[in-house]
């Protein structure tokens, strides 16, 4: 039963990540591959606030998400002029730099040793110690994320983002400040990725830089592509399937080292297959 709760928690965290990346990638059409960096920033900020400054959970999650959102501004603003491939490179570079910082800024992050002893969550005088309680908490945040992002994408703001994706010059011509919208998309997406990071940090209670490698960004990216760009339902399904599917490999009785690699191989192969033969993903609408 614990395995089921574990999978539900991880699926929930990745659903938040995939949905928030989808806002940038699927709706705004900005080719960002460094989403794991915001996730890591959220997790580290949360962990530092909780273990050193003993912040209460609600204050910590808001502050950590804001810090991640601030970094969304930091990366979103200078990369405004970049398109397609170059934006991908810049965000990829950002993810690697952030990883280097986690790994090397010893005083703040304790480098490769990681941060230990992140407390379990206590919120509204409820202790989320048992797995099922934490699962409920994570999925409450998933619902909040889905609700917010859905509201964003259906609002005028979301329509402008889609207009930018389809034709940014036309959007500019009808008087939309496309720079502001692009940066805002980055900030919102980074904010939610930060929330996912805090939830992860409190779940595993120990974080180190290896949890936020560039592969993590690629994994989130493949969830969005797999589920379908520009579809929130797609991101939910894509993230859930890509978290749960590899667990099926356990029942094949493979040794764990092979199983971990098999999992990555499935991700890689899925990306190639989807982008070549079904670019709209499972339920998306984006076309090549």
């Amino acid at each position, binding site marked *: 039963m614990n395995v089921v709760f574990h999978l539900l928690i991880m699926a929930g965290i990745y659903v938040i990540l995939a949905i928030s990346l989808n806002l940038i990638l699927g709706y705004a059409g900005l080719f960002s591959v460094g989403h794991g960096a915001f996730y890591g920033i959220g997790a580290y900020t949360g962990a530092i606030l909780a273990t050193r400054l003993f912040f209460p959970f609600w204050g910590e999650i808001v502050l950590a998400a804001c810090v991640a959102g601030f970094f969304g501004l930091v990366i979103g603003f200078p990369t405004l002029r*970049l398109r*397609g*491939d*170059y934006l991908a490179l810049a965000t990829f570079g950002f993810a690697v730099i952030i990883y280097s910082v986690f790994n090397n800024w010893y005083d703040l992050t304790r480098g490769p040793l990681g941060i230990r002893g992140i407390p379990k969550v206590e919120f509204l005088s409820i202790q989320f110690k048992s797995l099922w309680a934490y699962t409920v908490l994570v999925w409450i945040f998933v619902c909040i994320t889905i609700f917010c992002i859905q509201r964003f994408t259906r609002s005028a703001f979301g329509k402008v983002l889609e207009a930018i994706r389809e034709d940014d010059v036309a959007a500019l011509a009808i008087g939309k400040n496309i720079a502001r919208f692009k940066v805002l998309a980055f900030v919102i997406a980074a904010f939610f990725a930060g929330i996912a990071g805090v939830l992860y940090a409190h779940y595993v209670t120990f974080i180190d830089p290896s949890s936020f490698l560039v592969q993590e960004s690629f994994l989130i990216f493949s969830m969005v592509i797999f589920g379908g760009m520009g579809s929130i339902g797609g991101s939910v399904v894509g993230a859930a399937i890509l978290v749960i599917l590899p667990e099926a490999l356990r029942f094949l009785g493979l040794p764990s080292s092979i199983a971990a690699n098999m999992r990555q191989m499935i991700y*890689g*192969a899925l990306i190639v297959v989807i982008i070549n033969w079904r670019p709209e993903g499972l339920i998306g609408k984006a076309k090549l």
Partner: protein
Amino acid sequence: MFVQLVINSIIAGAIYTLLALGFTIIYGTLNFFNMAHGVAYMVGAYLSYVFRIQLGLNLPLAFSLSAVATAFAMIGIDRIAYFHLRVKRAPSWALVVSSIGVAIFIESFVSAVFGSDTRSLRTEQAAPGYGLFGAIITPVQISMLVVSGVLMLFLTLFLKTTLLGKALRATSNDPDMSSVLGINTESIYRSTFALGSGLAAIAGSLVALETDVFPTMGHSALLKSIVASIMGGIGNIPGAVFGSFFLGFVENFGIWKLNSSWKDAIALILLMFFILLRPSPSGMESQK
């Protein structure tokens, strides 16, 4: 210390040149950032390990076989992962996504076959280095310089004088016109892939003489090829050589004062600097 740093920079520059040349001709001809370039470097190193240590072949033969095998493997990959997208005239980001999938797949495949522990091409005790103005250069490093020098010369002659080289340059300049003139552009694309990946494989094999071989070694190689070729102007061959040596110097003099684990971050900060400050994000493409 200063002379030693200069020597180290030149050696690093020579290896980066092999990587960046491959990366830049692939970009120039196929028009996308091949995120699987680092994988060719890693596969080259592993194949050299197989041929040299496991099968006991001599070094030059092992290296050549490894480069040829990597080249053929990448032609196969091209058929599976890029050919359809090219035929459909998909946007370049789709090819980038596909190459990310390829990179994840091959990397985890190699890791499943060889395990994640490191291998090495070193067979005997490292030969003592020669003193040179108070610095040390080992015979292995000298052979690295010689091999990359010869390959650079070979590549230049190949592109300038042979029929295939000219066809390659013509295709990279204008694929439609080239195919009107009777150049089989598909076969040129395949040759470009083979050539670029073969160069990366040799770079990987050379580096493996000095350092360890492990499945994720391609990450930083990919990074270096991206940074070096963008600094030199992507698609531009003399530019790639210049960018590689520039990167080699900046990195090695950078870690004079900083911890060496910041090396990748230095490269990326350079990259960000260059892509953000370029006069026009599409300037390079419009020259072609």
